[in-house]
């Protein structure tokens, strides 16, 4: 079998590094944060603006809770 040169080993090692898949632990962290973000965004989407209220001197106060 042909001896591998440093260039061959370099090329193969780079390929190996790229192909390392996501671990279960990494996936769990990403999925936990994703669920948290989805909850947060769902809450924000559900905020209903209050009706506009006339303030002092007729200036509108447009507020949200």
């Amino acid at each position, binding site marked *: 079998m042909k001896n591998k040169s440093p*260039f*061959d080993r370099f*090329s193969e090692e*780079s390929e190996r590094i790229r192909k*390392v898949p*996501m671990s279960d632990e990494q*996936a769990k962290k990403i999925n936990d944060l994703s669920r948290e973000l*989805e909850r*947060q965004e769902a809450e924000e989407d559900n905020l209903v603006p209050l009706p506009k209220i006339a303030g002092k001197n007729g200036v509108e106060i447009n507020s949200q809770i």
Partner: protein
Amino acid sequence: MGKVIRFSKFSNYIKELNELGGCPAGTILDANVIITLSYSPKKYHTRTLDFLNKEIYARDIKCYTTVNTTSEYLEFHRRLLMTEGLRDSIDSDSKSNLPNKKKQLIRLQSGILANREKNNKADPVFFDREIKKIREGFYESGVVGKNLWKELCDFSLMKKLQEEYENLENLGVKYISPNDKDQKEFFIKEMTWAGAVKICAETCAGFSDSMILNALESTSFQFAVSLDSDIAFAVLSNSTMKDVVMPDDLIDSSEALSALV
């Protein structure tokens, strides 16, 4: 005037150099050579690997780079690894399940990239501005979005980029330096920034190319290896330049260059 040498003509070229006074002890590899070696889908990967094995390594010609190479290499792999990590995260088989809005954000940029791959035969690698757009979309979601982005970086980059750096170190291609006592014998004149500026100003070569050509001028090395036609034009346009070696089909892909070589 320097010469542009095809890979296929390198054996004859070295034979001529030997007849004139000996095979050069070393050469300078352009950063794009190192990057291409590390990434098999790159055009010229196989022929560059074969060339280095058969013509450079087999002749025991030592390889060097300029100081820019490590940062150019890591910058390419930063974008490559992040692109692959982000694209993996929206794949239907992915273990991760990002929020739909974030998936859409990545899909949008991934679609732009897919068009570029198809129409321009571009590398499947996001531009920096595309990664920034995606990152901005995560940061817009506040602390949780920021933390999620950090986890994606952790998966895509944290260990892998460090390993890429170690891989480059293990390759043992050092940057050319007059301060390295093992390299002193190669220097025939002082290597200065002013020298690189002069080369750049004379030919409007990119500055990384100018640094390679300046390093050649400062050492006894006769040629550099590159995958960039710009450096070939710079070599051909200046009477004091040394030579550059590159793949045949890279030369043939440019009418202007192939007419001059």
